């Protein structure tokens, strides 16, 4: 079946069976490898993307559910890593292996869009669906605070601008 999707503000059409998870459409059909597979059951958050401004697990979102909604992946945050959350991640030097970090960043972007100056407790609540096997949680917290401080106004979700 053909589906019309809006990924990172671009209209694309893909041919896939309706129950195909958005994750695998992004990775294998659209060649957007930034979104990662970790568990396939909504347990790890490695596959987090934004859909209609909300953080969703793309392993549990089917391509048919995504049709017609604005989807933003890590590749769509900025063309050059200049999104304030990406900048903060770089300044704080968050990643160890880095595998979870696209999902962490997408959850953080969604959090900051709704809560521009989150407390530690709000960060913990919003981020506890994202596992980091390497244990970079202290740094993630620090980077979210930094992104909130530097530029709450620009920590927006690109899809929302259109």
């Amino acid at each position, binding site marked *: 079946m053909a589906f019309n999707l809006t990924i990172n503000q671009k209209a694309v059409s893909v041919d896939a069976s309706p129950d195909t998870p958005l994750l695998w459409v992004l990775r294998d059909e659209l060649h957007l490898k930034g979104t990662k597979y970790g568990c396939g059951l909504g347990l790890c958050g490695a596959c987090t993307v934004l859909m209609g401004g909300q953080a969703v697990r793309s392993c549990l979102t089917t391509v048919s559910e995504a049709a017609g909604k604005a989807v933003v992946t890590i590749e769509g945050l900025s063309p050059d*890593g200049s999104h304030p959350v990406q900048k903060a991640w770089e300044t704080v030097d968050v990643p160890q292996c*880095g595998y979870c970090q696209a999902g962490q960043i997408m959850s953080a972007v969604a959090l900051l869009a709704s809560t521009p100056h989150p407390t530690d407790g709000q960060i913990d609540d919003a981020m506890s669906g994202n596992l980091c096997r*390497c244990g970079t949680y202290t740094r993630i917290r620090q980077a979210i605070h930094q992104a909130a401080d530097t530029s709450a106004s620009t920590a927006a979700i690109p899809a929302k601008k259109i």
Partner: protein
Amino acid sequence: MQIERHDMKEPKRKALKMERRDFLQLTALAGGGLMLRSFMGVAAPAQTRAAAPVLSPSAFIRIAADGTVTILAKNPEIGQGIKTVLPMIIAEELDVDWKSVKIEQADLDEATYGGQVSGGSMAIPNNWESLHRVGATARQLLITAAAQTWGVPVSQCSTTSGRVIHAASHRSLGYGELAAKAANLTLPDPVNVPLKDPKQYKIIGHSQGGCDVPAIVTGKPLFGIDVELPGMMHAVFQKCPVYGGRVKSANLDELLKMPGVRHAFTVAGSLATTPGGVDPSGSALEPGVAIVADTWWQAQTARKKLSVEWDQSGCLLQNSKEFAQHAETLSQQSPANTLRSEGDPEGTLKNSAKVVEAAYSYPFIAHATLEPQGTTASYKDGKLEMWTTSQTPGSGKKGVAQILGIPPENITVHLCRVGGGFGRRLNNDYMTEAAWIAKTVSAPVKLLWSREDDFGHDFYRPAGFQYLKAGLDQSGKVVAWRHHFVTFGEGSHTASSANLKNDVFPAGYVPNYALYMTAMPLWVKTGPLRAPGDNAHAFVVESFVDEVAIAAGKDPLAFRIELLQNPAIRATFAESLKPTPGQPMPYKIEPRMNPSRLQGVLQLVAEKSNWKNRKRSPGTGMGLACWYCHLGYFAEVAEVTVNESNQVRVNKVWIAGDIGSQIINPRAAENMVHGGIIDGMSEMNQEITLANGQVEQTNFHQHAMMRMKQAPPEIEVHFKKTDYATTGLGEPSLPPILPAIANAIFAATGKRIRSLPMSGSGFKWA
């Protein structure tokens, strides 16, 4: 990850002694620069670690005409930061600005780069000397080129930020301008080239961001799972839920009709097992069914329709509960092996004023790297090309060559960034599977394991059962110690990572001491998990030390210091190994634990955590533990609060570590230690269980790891710099956190956790 394991797996260390008959070949680079390629004559392997490999600078460094310096990162990057840290060493001695350096991942080529192994926290010990000399030799060549250009003595030239300077005449030349000439010079003897005084370091000891971070935060394809080749297909591989089960029949024809499925076939496998225990080479091919489709989701969807009749004859259908019962029985009998015996342990125990006795145990656990196992392979005209996430790609290649019968020279291996190693990828079963599938279909294929494959077919951290007894005299001094380790294996042979070294603390520090080992058979693969052995033994020993200290009526800190001050040990310890203070060479590693260094970190952590004045209020307590492993010394204090429902919250952790004279990349080092703490906390409440030979856990909900809200709000890391050789950091911070938290829980509640997971004692994370 143990040193022993490396020696076992790679008997001939790839320590290359470069003869002074190198040929340097110049290759024109686009843009007019020069690339130095070396074709080295390889002489006999060096005998000891002290004789570090001497490697050609030209293999590691490319200098373009515009002065851009490219440094090759030789080891697999598994999140330990080695892709940044090893080039930092070269760049320091080369004397270039870090921001002018580009880093490139080297392909597998151990003849050129030396061993390319990420394990055992050994990358720094194995590469410290050689990479210093690589950078310094290149710098020396550039100085010589400049001196010849100017007609001045080499001794009048110096370098700074990628330029050679002749101060007397106010002349300078950039490395880019000198590269062509330098490439034609005879290599100086790398052992005699001058090295920088560490006081002059501008890169080592200064925090540098991870070299891949910009690519990570923008979602660039970097990891093994991201590889994409033209015409590539996707594969899943279904193995028997019971280790070693073979395929009797499968509904392959039905699968072939499913959307996108191109191939479905059975694989007979190449398992070699030993009687009494599974001990396959880490590359062995297990039997199973391969499904190859246009997309991974199609292959995975087809797998849901797969129905296999497995032949499990010859497999042992074991159950976790039986292990515990069997271990208990064995603990009552006389031990099968004596690993160490000094004085009269049994007699002294009988006559001790006080005897403390306890039984400890811990379960199998899984690695669960966040990136599941996988490899991409392409087979064409007898040649195999692979993109992999192995921590030991060299032995992976060897295994593939043997099992598939492809000559090693026809196999090319590229190293991808790895989404977590933790020791899982020291074994290379997934590499062999991918190669087999690609060869069978003669096309590029990406094999990706599902999370369920990963939990079901790990090389698990082995469970263990330990029985300890300590005898105290009237004054509360330890006079006897008996340690019986019931583990897996057969006879005196233990399953992988199920061993206990005969210098486990406090061996050597107690006059009457015995260490025994009894093994029972096992039919599941085991292997090293970050700080193998130590991640379990530290929990057991340091929890028991705490019990003994309390029984002796002593403060746990003072008690440990007293044990470590055993005069006999101090007298025999080779203090002569201490290198010249602060100098990088000679690079000498102490052969065993140095008690004064362990005391050093204990004292530092006590001071930082204000141990002496620690508060004791009901429900809140502090615990202390220390451990030496992987050449590193760590002491850790945890403060916990336990609520009425036995939910544990770790409020703060203080860490003191001694890994020698340099912390090469301080911010990354702190991150790595945070990781060790969080990882150790996860291990306190994880468990893999077997039911009829099958692993029961399938995904993260059944083998939980720490989440952000459970992570300690504060983790304070202190490094104690000492004059000893700089060593590795991937592992040694992990082991002490388990007993530090268990001891803190005891301080808070009076309940001693002697068995993991801690849920068995009624505790859970808040």
